[in-house]
């Protein structure tokens, strides 16, 4: 069994190989969004996040935290202090597989997974999400498909997602697709429920009251001066 049974365990981000990374790493208070913490806390029903003692249990419990640019603990602190851009542009939000390990282990009872969901919603409604990030594309397509048909059809959904994000993946998973198809475990038929229109009306009649972010379009958020 080779050194590590899977990917390199330690990789510092040493992108700027040829020169020192002298990008300014300071954030002025005026650049922070002071309302961000209350908005997230209210949207996630997670007022307890203000009680976080930064102990790091969530990052240690999280199965994918070592792939994230900011560990869940850092995200909670950044949400609390208003680092809106860094949080909404981070990979953490989209790597979270909502397995709830952090929510169960947190000694202060903070619903961290619900905070991550609230951040996903903020990222999507403020279209901060990285353009070709598959997770957010999957979420949006899934949402539209169920909105129209009432059920999700895995075949068409995956097809559309791969086409939109990375067609090469389509080829790579072709073998897998055929195996599933021949075993009747995937089909290209779109599943539907009987009264689709009633469901659509039902879904549209309810609005998440947290829609005020549409005002903060990314366009008018000035890029952090380098």
């Amino acid at each position: 069994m080779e050194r590590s049974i899977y990917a390199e365990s330690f990789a510092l981000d040493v992108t700027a190989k040829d020169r020192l990374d002298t990008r300014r790493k300071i954030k002025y208070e005026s650049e922070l969004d002071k309302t961000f913490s209350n908005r997230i806390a209210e949207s996630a029903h997670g007022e307890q996040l203000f009680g976080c003692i930064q102990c790091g249990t969530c990052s240690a419990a999280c199965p994918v935290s070592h792939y994230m640019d900011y560990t869940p603990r850092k995200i909670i602190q950044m949400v609390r202090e208003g680092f809106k851009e860094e949080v909404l542009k981070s990979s953490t939000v989209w790597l979270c597989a909502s397995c709830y390990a952090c929510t169960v282990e947190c000694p202060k009872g903070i619903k961290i997974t619900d905070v991550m969901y609230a951040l996903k919603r903020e990222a999507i409604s403020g279209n901060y999400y990285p353009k070709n990030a598959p997770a957010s594309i999957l979420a949006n397509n899934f949402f539209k498909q169920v909105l129209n048909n009432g059920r999700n059809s895995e075949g068409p959904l995956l097809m559309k997602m791969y086409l939109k994000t990375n067609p090469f993946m389509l080829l790579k998973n072709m073998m897998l697709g055929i195996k599933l198809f021949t075993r009747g475990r995937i089909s290209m038929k779109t599943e539907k429920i009987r009264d689709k229109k009633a469901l659509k009306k039902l879904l549209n009649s309810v609005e998440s009251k947290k829609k005020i972010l549409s005002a903060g379009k990314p366009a008018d958020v000035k890029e952090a001066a380098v």
Partner: protein
Amino acid sequence: MKYIYYPGCSLKSTGRVYEESLLSVMDVLNIDYKELDDWNCCGATAYMAVDDRKAYVLAARNLALAEEQMKNEPEVNIIAPCAACFMVLLKTQKFLEENPEDKAAVVAALKESGLNYTGRAKVRHPLDVLVNDYGEAEIIKRITKPLKGIRVASYYGCQTVRPYSVFDDQRNPETMDRLMKAAGAEVVDWSMKTRCCGASLTGTVQDVALPLSYVIVHEAKKRRADAVATACPLCQFNLECYQTDMNSKFKSDLKIDVLYFTQLLGIALGIEPKKLGMNRLFTEPENLYKILEGGNRVYV
């Protein structure tokens, strides 16, 4: 007791094996159930990421439908086999209970489309129904081909046991272990029971999710398990269908049968493999059959 069965989208496609095996097991144990008519998708992780109010009303519609279709039953018990559906329905109920303002909005919306949500429905997982309602003793009585000699590693995944489910311990669950013991199998003691398999990440960011699934099957193999028993379509899919990708990425030659606990239980109850969806698995579980006929393992 009468149950209402909520399959969820994946049990009609990638998870068809889970539905086939579960329904045949319930038929043999003559558990009285009927499928929820015109059920809709529970929204899984996607809806919550787009709009939480819509996510709750989408899931609540199923609960309202179940309450409607089981009007004259003393209790409304919904069996939701898929971990994501099970967790989302439970979360919806709990959330609406704790937030009267949201509940009012959801109930009003549902009323417009002629449905009424009271919160009477109880969301149940098949493990809970088989072990706590039906009881191991009853199952043992009906075992015809005990899985003697088969070492099973029971894998619960994440959302089946946490954070809202209360039928088992969140960190060290044992309902599936008890069920496998009842089916005559030998149960492997390991600490990966509730570790996340990577869920939807295998589709979106595979290089992050693959190691998660690999670690689980690797540990099961190391503990000399013959089969991993799962209780969620996404876990079963990740652990079984990506074994070839894992072997190429981590330069290993690992091969292990990954089945649903309902399939293993089905075999022990003497149900013929075809009705348990055995033919739909990527690899025929030869090890399993060899051991049952008293032979020795084909691959270790």
